[in-house]
């Protein structure tokens, strides 16, 4: 376990070294003396992405979180879901104990989560109504809307 911690710390250092953050973080770590939760202690550094040290650095995370959030509005709720999955550590950490950088990522991820939930509720209610209501509810329109009939009519399934 400690080997792993050291490994993480090393990786983090390498990773952060590339993005130029290492000096500040180390200074904060040594200066802060381990106070303030996991932020200043490099061995328990929290990565914003679910990939951990292989994922994004924190600056990039903010950019990506925002980009995923905005693109999700183009009828792409799956992107919101991916956003939540990707930044799961941000979503899961409590605001008090998380590093300051998470607080910039958090609003986007939260809004993506809410958007995805709303969309999922709407979509699943529509699907259930369609499935269960069937012809009783819709009348002959049901036959026109259902996919397999549409595929037959338009000959969509033939070209593979």
């Amino acid at each position, binding site marked *: 376990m*400690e*080997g*792993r911690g*050291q*490994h993480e710390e*090393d*990786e983090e*250092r*390498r*990773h952060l*070294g*590339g*993005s130029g953050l290492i000096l500040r973080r180390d200074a904060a770590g040594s200066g802060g003396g381990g106070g303030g939760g996991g932020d200043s202690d490099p061995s328990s550094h929290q990565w914003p*992405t*679910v*990939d951990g*040290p*292989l*994922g*994004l*650095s924190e600056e*990039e995370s903010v950019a*990506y979180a925002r*980009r995923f959030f905005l693109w999700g509005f183009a*009828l*792409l*709720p*799956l*992107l919101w879901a*991916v956003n939540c*999955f*990707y930044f799961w550590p941000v979503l899961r950490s409590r605001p008090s104990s998380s590093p300051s950088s998470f607080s910039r990522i958090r609003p986007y991820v939260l809004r993506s989560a809410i958007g995805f939930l709303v969309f999922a509720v709407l*979509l699943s209610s*529509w*699907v259930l109504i*369609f*499935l269960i209501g*069937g012809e009783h509810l819709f009348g002959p329109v049901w036959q026109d*809307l*259902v*996919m*397999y009939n*549409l*595929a*037959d009519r338009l000959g*969509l*399934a*033939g*070209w*593979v």
Partner: protein
Amino acid sequence: MAQDPDSTPSLLDSLGEEIIRIVAPVSACMLLVVLLVSTLSSSTSPLSSLAAAAYSDPSSSSSAASIWDKLSGALLSSLVFIASVTLLTFLLVLLFYLRCTRFLKSYMAFSSFVVLAFLGGEILLLLVTHFSFPIDAITFSLLLLNFSVVGVMAVFMTKMPISVNQGYLVIIGVLVAYWFTLLPEWTTWALLVAMALYDLAAVLLPGGPLRLLVELAISRDEDIPALVYEARPVEPRPGARRRLWRERRDYGTNSGSNANPSSLGNMSPVTDERRDLGTNSSLNSNNSMTGEALPETRLVISEQESAGGSSRSELRAPLVQTQLDSRGEGEIEGIGLGSSGAIKLGLGDFIFYSVLVGRAAMYDFMTVYACYLAIIAGLGITLLLLAFYRKALPALPVSIMLGVFVYFLTRVLLEVFVVQCSTNLLMF
């Protein structure tokens, strides 16, 4: 710092873990193709497919056609395919040489979009029709749109969670492999054998396009725009840190450049890239750690060097060196070590393995099991050869040859035996 006494078993652990991380997605891809083939093949007739139309051979017509006719038709079709693949690969090499990287990348993104949206949509539609699942058109198109756009983004454009990226690559492999299984039978087998031979030639011969491509990429220290599955790097054992390659350029290339025949028009070539191994400077270490599908260079970097030669690194260096020598690079054709030490396998290998198993599934499940074991064994052998030879080796030949051989043996010999035993209630 004392050397960890259990570093020896952990070497095997991590090696096993890495192999599992490559064998698992290959197996998942094959499983999905087998499932698709077994549910859908009963409902589609072999003549209605576009693939059959492009590669019609006498076997699809009356069964009275002689063996020779079928064979010659199949060979001709596969030769045409190989020729187009070669041309396209040379074209790719040319474009890469002329540094048209943006064009290549956008073309790859476009082709993945076509595969995911059109082929994926087709197959989803076939499934929906087969199971008569009452989904409506609006939901279907919305889901398909989401699926394909996020897929293109995951594979080619942005940084996405590694699992999402890997999942989409496997899905693309499944879709293309399913499409290939729609070819007529003799053509499929001839194609598989021809692709294995082509792979062997293209990677090992000095004039081979794949070899040229790899060498170009290495010399320029660039990445080839292609679909490559990269496994997550295994955490180094405590005390061992990362594997380091210092100033070493070893390339593992994998085969599998597939280009769908251009005659079909709506399919675009999907080229896989071989994995290269290269050394990187320590400054690129963070890139290497991101484990993206398009790393700058696949090399394991000396972390110790980047850390500025701390005392820890000095101590670690001899450990790493021995590991380096003992492990080999694990580059197998298609499998190679990424800059973060992860294994990469080109998507073409996924596709052709799955085509073989899918075609075996069209006969019976017994052949599926036999071919699956043969392919995994071939993969292991290729890994071994790679560790032994330490240069780019093609991943297709060993597995495909073993798989084809085992398929025909099973059909001819094993099946009779097993059926006789089972019908006489003799279990073993």
